[in-house]
């Protein structure tokens, strides 16, 4: 190492490359080895299991697509579609709500309000899971504070339903959207608005022809991110609805713990593979959109 230092003046690029390759590799190897074992092994096990069919009588295993086709039929298909519908609806509502809230906050003159909303969004976007479920059960559940006081039950309200779950999901999806879209809104230059107004554009025309086209990649990217986040959510639904709303995550958990039928573990793995495919599609759409929107934020 020390002998390499004087050479830097002579041929910096070449020697620097040679000198640094060794520590670069050495420092990265533990990380790659760890992910190969802790992530690669389960992923391969899932892939292998999803295509393996075990004969209950003989115990012999063979490869086939039977698990996958089972996972796309009957109750499993209903659950998959239920998850997609719930994620799409809640992500769409959260995209609009998050955009409105972020715009209200970004253009606000009160710095404190801005900081408070952004900090709160950081907390609430991570406030998925169990505490969120119980906060809503306490508020709008069967014996919830508001349910009793506003006699919502008579009005047909049920928290343990599709729309109840949507309402709960918005609690972490809207803040996530605020966090995602705020940099894009900050990237809208005030000169663009002024230029549009000087040319006689109305407020609506400015949004229709200038702001929204610039924001579209960010909005779509945010929607996709929210969709993926809602799609993968399990804890909230499990703690809240049990299985009254058919969701793929709940089906996987049931099949894994053998609640429904013995020997459904491999169907659980096939369902997991379905989820990975959907999540992979989500990322495949999200990443290019994010790259495109970041062009405007420079």
């Amino acid at each position: 190492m020390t002998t390499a230092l004087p050479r830097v003046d002579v041929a910096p690029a070449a020697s620097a490359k040679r000198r640094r390759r060794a520590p670069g590799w050495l420092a990265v190897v533990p990380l790659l080895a760890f992910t190969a074992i802790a992530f690669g092994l389960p992923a391969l096990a899932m892939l292998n299991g999803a295509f393996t069919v075990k004969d209950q009588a003989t115990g012999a295993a063979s490869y086939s697509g039977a698990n996958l086709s089972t996972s796309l039929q009957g109750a499993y298909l209903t659950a998959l579609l239920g998850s997609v519908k719930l994620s799409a609806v809640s992500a769409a509502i959260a995209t609009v709500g998050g955009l409105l809230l972020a715009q209200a906050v970004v253009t606000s003159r009160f710095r404190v309000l801005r900081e408070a909303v952004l900090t709160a969004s950081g907390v609430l976007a991570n406030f998925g899971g169990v505490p969120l479920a119980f906060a809503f059960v306490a508020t709008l559940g069967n014996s919830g504070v508001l349910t009793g006081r506003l006699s919502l039950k008579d009005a047909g309200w049920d928290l343990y339903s599709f729309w109840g779950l949507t309402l709960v999901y918005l609690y972490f999806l809207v803040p996530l959207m605020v966090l995602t879209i705020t940099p894009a809104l900050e990237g809208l230059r005030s000169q663009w608005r002024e230029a549009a107004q000087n040319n006689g554009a109305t407020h609506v025309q400015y949004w229709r022809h200038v702001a929204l086209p610039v924001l579209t990649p960010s909005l779509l990217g945010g929607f996709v991110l929210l969709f993926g986040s809602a799609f993968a959510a399990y804890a909230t639904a499990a703690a809240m609805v049990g299985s009254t709303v058919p969701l793929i995550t709940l089906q996987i958990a049931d099949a894994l713990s053998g609640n429904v039928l013995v020997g459904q573990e491999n169907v659980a793995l096939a369902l997991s593979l379905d989820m990975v495919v959907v999540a992979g599609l989500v990322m495949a759409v999200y990443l290019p959109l994010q790259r495109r929107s970041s062009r405007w934020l420079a």
Partner: protein
Amino acid sequence: MARLTSSRMRVRPGRAVVLAAAAVYFLVPLAASVVFSVDSGGHVTFEAYSQIVGADGFTASLLLSLELAATTIALVLLLMVPAMVALRLGAPKLRSVVAVVCSLPLVVPPIAFVAGISTVLKWGPEYLSRTPLFQTIVAIQNENYPFVLVLAYVVMALPFVYQALDAGLRAIDVRTLVEAARSCGASWPQALVRAVLPNLRGALLNASFLTLALVLGEFTVAHLLGYEPFAVWIVDISGAQAQMSVAVSVLSLLVTWVLLLALAAVGGRRAPSRTAA
């Protein structure tokens, strides 16, 4: 100028409505939770809160979660920090490999991940019962300290830690720092610990906090592998003690909030460029 101000005036009622609706939606469940947890047939009682500490399983599950969080944070930083710093110094091809590897966990939802883990764990008794690997698989499933959860949590934390460290490293000139330290006679570990890490304080805190929040709130993996850390405990008691489960939920939100505000106070002030990440 007159037009600009007038257009700004016109937007204001809309903004007030949006902000009010958001305030109602986000604050009412919190307020209602507090009311729910102290309301006992019409009069106020803080029993649900005072009983938490003595509740069956509270200490054990919280301690388990904190131990898991500490180990996860230590392991993920130990793996990620040297790798990320080394990548800043060279090896551009590896850089994209690590970026992809660290974002792969985003494509595998926790529930799918745990399905894979439980399959691997089942190989132990099925195929490996005569090999030393079997002992390892048994050991990482120890009821008192399930190391398998740490393995899972480190993987799940990788994307967040990568983002936080990447943003932090982008804000400093790693190469100059390391070369300065090296030419002053520091060894590689010394250069890392005494020159680079102090400049990464905000990013390290950020990464640690995100990991802590992830581990403390994690339910899916622990529940399906059959362990009972904090989040699983809250669900387990909810049937018998609904009020207490809500009280614990309120407290855990408050703790998260305080931690994040502390983080913002320590790390946020120095690096405005990092807030976007």
